[in-house]
């Protein structure tokens, strides 16, 4: 077993949606209280708060940075507070910081909250933020690139190199949406899952990306309560324990990122995380992949050798990744299925990893899930953080 000593013992979440009338603090209250109660602890047991930095919300960021959460929630036992920003990889880093706080006896239990309310951000600010996030202001932005645009270019190149068809790319969306339809916290919960034809018939945004292959901006929030694996064991509560971790940094911008290095990083970080956990690929019950857009999914799958090169598209098309399939994949449906909540989708993916291992995943529950692989990635794909999680035993 790995040398990690961290366990998620409580989760709280509001369904992803549009809440212009709901204040960000209202959501922080709800998710944090839920997570503390889910962990079966008292609020004053929380000794540290490490918040995920909300993107494009400078006022809220300032409030959280300057320590408002413990005061607002009355966390009388809190010893310290901070905020952490690494884009979509923020939650992974909050967990790392929490692990360090716990390991060094600064705190026994840490609360990690996140909230994003896109719907109340003025549209020009929102457009401005997402047009420039992860896009270089000197060498990319003046040409009129967008987030969808850079992903579209990546997608075209991937399809060209792997021979993946348009239908196979669309089937990634179908697979993700099938999971989302089963997730009460998704914007697509209970909604009809589009067929491949329907995905491809949606209007073209930035070729070859169709509208249904792009993310919908939404509001959401979640919280994790974490402690050491040892303490979780003592508590005998359902928990998800971190077993292994490894990461690679690539580049800040897509122009300067080589696909070869990304693939190498996918492979090395995954292998190292698995080795760290002492778990083999075959033992992984769920591949809880967070890569924000469809293209990363087949690319990752074939790169780490879960299928033959060029065959990943088929894996999604043939249903192996669907609910009930032999390789449960991204069981909240990634950002495509969940709705884009800033840095919230990676948080939601951790919540899901924990739920699956705690046996609380409802209709999405993968039976007897023992080991979950989860990754995150930040910015425009600047890095890749691989983690392996197991049940509390």
């Amino acid at each position: 077993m790995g040398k990690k000593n961290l366990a998620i013992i409580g989760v709280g979440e509001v369904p992803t949606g549009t809440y212009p009338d709901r204040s960000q603090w209202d959501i922080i209250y709800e998710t944090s209280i839920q997570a503390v109660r889910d962990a079966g602890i008292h609020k004053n047991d929380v000794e540290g708060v490490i918040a995920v930095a909300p993107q494009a919300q400078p006022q809220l960021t300032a409030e959280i940075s300057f320590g408002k959460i413990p005061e607002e929630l009355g966390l009388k036992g809190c010893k310290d507070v901070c905020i952490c920003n690494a884009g979509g990889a923020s939650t992974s880093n909050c967990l790392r910081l929490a692990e360090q706080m716990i390991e060094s006896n600064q705190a026994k239990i840490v609360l990690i909250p996140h909230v994003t309310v896109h719907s109340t951000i003025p549209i020009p600010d929102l457009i401005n933020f997402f047009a420039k996030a992860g896009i270089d202001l000197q060498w990319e932005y003046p040409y009129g690139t967008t987030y969808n645009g850079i992903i579209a270019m990546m997608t075209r190149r991937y399809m060209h190199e792997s021979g993946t068809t348009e239908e196979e790319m669309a089937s990634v969306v179908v697979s993700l949406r099938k999971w989302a339809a089963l997730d009460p916290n998704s914007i697509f919960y209970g909604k009809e899952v589009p067929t491949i034809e329907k995905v491809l018939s949606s209007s073209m945004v930035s070729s070859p990306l169709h509208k249904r292959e792009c993310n919908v901006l939404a509001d959401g929030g979640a919280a994790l309560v974490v402690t050491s694996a040892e303490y979780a064991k003592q508590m005998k509560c359902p928990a998800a324990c971190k077993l292994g971790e490894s990461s690679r940094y690539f580049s800040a911008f897509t122009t300067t990122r080589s696909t070869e290095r990304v693939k190498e990083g996918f492979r090395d970080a995954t292998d190292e995380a698995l080795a760290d956990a002492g778990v083999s690929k075959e033992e992984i019950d769920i591949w809880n992949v967070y890569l924000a857009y469809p293209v990363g999914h087949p690319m990752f799958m074939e790169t780490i050798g879960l299928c033959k090169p060029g065959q990943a598209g088929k894996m999604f098309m043939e249903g192996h990744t669907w609910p009930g399939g032999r390789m449960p994949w991204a069981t909240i449906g990634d950002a495509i299925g969940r709705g884009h909540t800033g840095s919230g989708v990676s948080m939601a993916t951790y919540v899901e990893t924990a739920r699956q291992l705690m046996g609380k995943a409802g209709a999405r529950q993968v039976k007897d899930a023992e080991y979950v692989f989860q990754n995150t990635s930040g910015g425009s794909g600047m890095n890749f953080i691989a983690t392996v999680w197991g049940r509390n035993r």
Partner: protein
Amino acid sequence: MDTQKPTPVIQPWTKEFWKATQQGKLLVQHCKDCNSKIFFPKKVCPECWSENLNWIESTGKAKVYTYTEMIDMVEPKFMADLPYIIAMVDLDEGIRMTTRIVNCKSEDVAIGMDVEVVFQEISPECSLPVFQPTDISLRIKTTDPKETETKVPEFETRLQPENYQAIQYEIGGKNNVVCFITLNRPDKYNAINRRMAAELIDAFRRVREIPAVGVVVLTGAGKAFCTGGDLEIFPSLAGHQNSLNWLSHEGLDVQRAITSCEKVVICKINGHCLAGGLEIALACDLLYAGESAKMGTTEINMGILPGWGGTARLPRSMPIFRAREIIFSGRKDYTAREMYDMGLLTRVFKDDEFEFQFEKVVNNIASKKPIALRMGKEIMARSVDGCDIETALAVERNGIQWLTYSPDIQSVMDQFRASPDQLTQQQKQQNIRSDAKK
């Protein structure tokens, strides 16, 4: 919403790169110590941290690595460009750039396609390196100056108000005696392109044929009056002949169409009025502006000068020492009030009163006899052109004499001939009435 296109955020160590783009050169940063080619350019070599860096000139040849056609969901500032192609290209020198593919249909772009660099001027400081197919047969339009110089834009159908695209033309006002010509490219701040120039020439000549109309109101749709020549025409000005034609054909003809249209042209400056936009305004007879309008001539910032009459009309429209400042400073933030104080505008109104006050002015002038307005415009034009006072007085005298004996004045005169008292009586009563109003 912000529709100004972004320019590259330049770092001290990339100034040279952008400076070279103005001379049509694409540079690649190079480390003299470890021989790396560096992109994006850095302050120190990212491989060996050497500061011993220089630039080598690229051949400008590249291959398309990947691309996308942007169709939807872009920032407002790029919407006017849609659809456009963004690509990553691999230069022969071994670096990869993000760029645009131009002069090529989207269905003709392919991974691996050979492309070569061309430059699009986007600001006085820099041009963007973009790429076009090396294979001439794949290009939409050629950028060979020899070929473009002979290329004159032709409009498929004869221009008619019904098929105007860049302006609106409407006869209206009280008794249908006012012609409204509205620059109508609000998403481009009514920037002037070839189409707009052609339509303006057509519209101002067309309105001459309507005798009942005495007044033309020229204004801009949306928030601006006009911000000058559209950047879209700039690449075509690379050819000497093209550039000269833009000044002497489109430019001069637009000015002439306005100054010789024989109606009183009232310019309603409803917002930004810059560069070529201001020059069009200068060709008009009366200039009214809303308080928030900003004005100026910006050509000098690009190393040139106003070329649609600006250097001729500004000094003739206001004290010379003030006109010079406007042209030399390149400022585009003169407020309407400032311009008025410097002696340029007819009148400036508060924004919330502008519509109302302007309409009052137009209605009043439009109630005058078109024939008198026409003669007045011509007499004053000749007079201020700098002829000697005796000539000016002769033009005036004979013009008024002509008016007095023109048919429609004569029909009024007949009743006065019959009863000579009537004129003085009528005038007296009018005076009493107008005094009472005050």
